[in-house]
């Protein structure tokens, strides 16, 4: 057993921590208020190698380790959830290629993502198929060396800004989920349109797009795996990306807690710091304990991803479920500790509470996580 990061991981963490403190944290409130994608932060991450973390060295990256990815997402999310999605979705959009791509596909498609020249996105959900992903309607029909895509994808994080988009579509609608295939769209060759950008409760700087495919042509060489393998790929990717959402939730909770803890020490009422009241102390103790419990679950799941462990599906679902429920509760309690100041946007905790909510919903709702966990327990 070893509960600590390696020296190399600690060095990466310190670099990220410093960048986040200097450049990201001061921008977080503004990014949220303007609901504008922080292209400057994307460039900062690209220039500093942060977007290369999801990739092994042979594909232009620096790591490829899920533990390192989670550590990075956590550090960024402490200050700005929107910015943490830049790394999280780079990993999510690249996993299908890393998991199911041929050597040729990995060598061709990964380097521009690792360098940060392009950002990636992942298009699975549709208006009529959220938790029930297998019910998707988007079609991919083969004509010679190409497929032609038609359909609409919903709630696609970074769908409007991505240069590389992994899309799941039916190649054999009769075959239900066995008819789903996965494709990598490169924007310059297979342009797609963002038909709508959503207004959201949180992660407001992160564009969430509806994507319209009207006769979008994709070369057969960009199909991942066999025809019909798409659903399996989608689930395998989610097993790997869920710890990252757990890490994001963890970071949000830690950011809110750090703020609330300092506030409790400095805020005076009834002639003393509110931290001297046992009612506040017990809240702080519970928050710290819940965060610690979530951290271990998240990083254990990440080590399972890296080890390709057989119980990964269950462990990843547990990490995502526990960490995101924890983050919602913790950020709500942190708003409570700040009282009226917690509720106004001059202070960061209300944003963190709004940002926490999505972690219970995306990458499989927490209801879906429970289905996954129960299924593996009762198998």
């Amino acid at each position: 057993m070893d509960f600590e990061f390696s020296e190399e991981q600690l060095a990466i963490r310190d670099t990220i921590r410093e960048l986040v403190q200097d450049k990201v944290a001061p921008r977080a409130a503004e990014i949220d208020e303007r609901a504008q994608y922080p292209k400057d932060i994307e460039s900062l991450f690209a220039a500093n190698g942060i977007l290369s973390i999801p990739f092994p060295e042979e594909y232009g990256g620096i790591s490829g380790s899920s533990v390192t990815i989670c550590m990075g997402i956590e550090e960024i999310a402490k200050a700005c959830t929107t910015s943490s999605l830049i790394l999280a979705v780079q990993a999510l959009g690249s996993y299908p290629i890393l998991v199911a791509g041929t050597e040729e596909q990995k060598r061709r498609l990964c380097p521009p993502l690792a360098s940060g020249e392009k950002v990636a996105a992942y298009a699975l959900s549709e208006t009529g198929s959220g938790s029930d992903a297998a019910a998707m309607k988007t079609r991919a029909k083969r004509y010679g060396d190409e497929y032609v895509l038609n359909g609409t994808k919903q709630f696609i994080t970074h769908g409007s800004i991505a240069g590389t988009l992994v899309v799941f579509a039916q190649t054999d609608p009769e075959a239900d989920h066995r008819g789903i295939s996965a494709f990598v769209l490169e924007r310059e060759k297979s342009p797609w349109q963002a038909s709508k950008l959503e207004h959201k409760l949180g992660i407001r700087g992160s564009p969430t797009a509806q994507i319209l495919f009207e006769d979008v042509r994709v070369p057969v060489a960009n199909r991942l795996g066999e025809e019909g393998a798409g659903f399996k790929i989608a689930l395998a990717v989610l097993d790997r990306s869920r710890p990252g959402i757990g890490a994001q939730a963890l970071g949000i909770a830690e950011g809110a807690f750090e703020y609330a803890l300092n506030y409790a020490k400095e805020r005076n009422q009834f002639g003393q710091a509110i931290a001297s009241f046992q009612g506040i102390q017990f809240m702080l103790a519970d928050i710290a304990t819940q965060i610690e419990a979530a951290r271990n679950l998240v990083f254990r799941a990440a080590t399972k991803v890296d080890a390709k462990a057989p119980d990964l599906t269950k462990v990843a679902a547990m990490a995502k479920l526990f960490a995101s429920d924890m983050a919602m509760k913790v950020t709500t309690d942190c708003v409570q500790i700040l009282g009226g100041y917690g509720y106004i946007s001059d202070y960061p905790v209300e944003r963190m509470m709004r940002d926490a909510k999505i972690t219970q919903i995306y990458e499989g709702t927490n209801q879906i996580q429970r289905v996954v966990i129960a299924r593996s327990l009762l198998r």
Partner: protein
Amino acid sequence: MNFDLTPQHEAFRASVRELAQGVAEPLAAEVDRDHRFPEEAVAAASSAGLMGVLIPQQYGGAGLDALAFTLCIEELAQACASTSVIIDVHTSVGSEPILLFGSEEQRRRWLPPLASGELLGAFALTEPAAGSDAASLKTSARRLGGDYVLNGTKVFITNIGRAGVYIVFARTGPDERAAGISAFIVPSDSPGLRVGQVFKKMGLNGSPTGELVLENVRVPADNRLGAEGQGFTVAMRALDSGRIGISGQALGIAQAAVDQARALLAGRPRAQGDDFTLADLATRVESARLLAYQAAWLCSRGRPFTREASMAKLHCTDTAMAVALDALQLAGEEGVLSGSPFERHVRDAKALQIYEGSNQIQRHVIARDLLR
């Protein structure tokens, strides 16, 4: 980072599991119903060397670390919570203070019989008016020549009447708080030492809990553990690792409840609500387990672990209580019948939120550390 147990720890866990499931588990319902000491299980644990897990080999123990100790208690508790608390108290707060604070002579004299199980250990800190506020204890130890004379009453003493030796905390100095407290090794056959009331409890019925009455008990000065005035430090350090043991106990009870609920659900038609409850239970137990192992791992490596031990104790025992209640709910009517493991887990789990520092005290310890 690596959250897997080493093969050595896995093998040790498997060996404890075999003993626990083979000997302790079949007795658990009866021990609870008849309020009887699980002699067979404690004897089997003694033969297997489980009474000296933390005691170095040179003193006759197994010389294992805090993580092994946690695994041991977890496996025992999964089989029988009463057995686990008897062995937990013996191993951690009942023996470890002698290892950590004893002189070489004290270690040589007391640790081998504790390690073999010939002597059962116990820890006598709490008094009727000094529970969470342990530093206010009143039991006195007056120096008389080469002896100390102890007077006072201790309550809620686990292993009462069964222990061969008690670690007793008493006031030696004029300081009315922590600095006036010293620790003593008091053999149970000391004249003037007697067992007072043995309590009837909600759960952990196989583990005797009661009063220890000390009336002019003479103890040689050689039996003082650590320096005069060091007693409170001894107690707090003992409780730090005691809390890791209780975390293990909580995990065992919670895991037993989850496994039994899972077996029950697997064999009947069920609604999604039941599946979701089971998923939540299993997830919480996993989160608790990692906190307990983290505290044990830190302790094993000689690192500070007070905050983590308190977090583990708080989270594991709150989890055990919640899990036991939810598992009982899943079991329904069948679960509330006497003799059902589900109702027993609820009664057993409740004690864990209270002893070894109530969960309010754990929150106090954690908050103090956060606000330092």
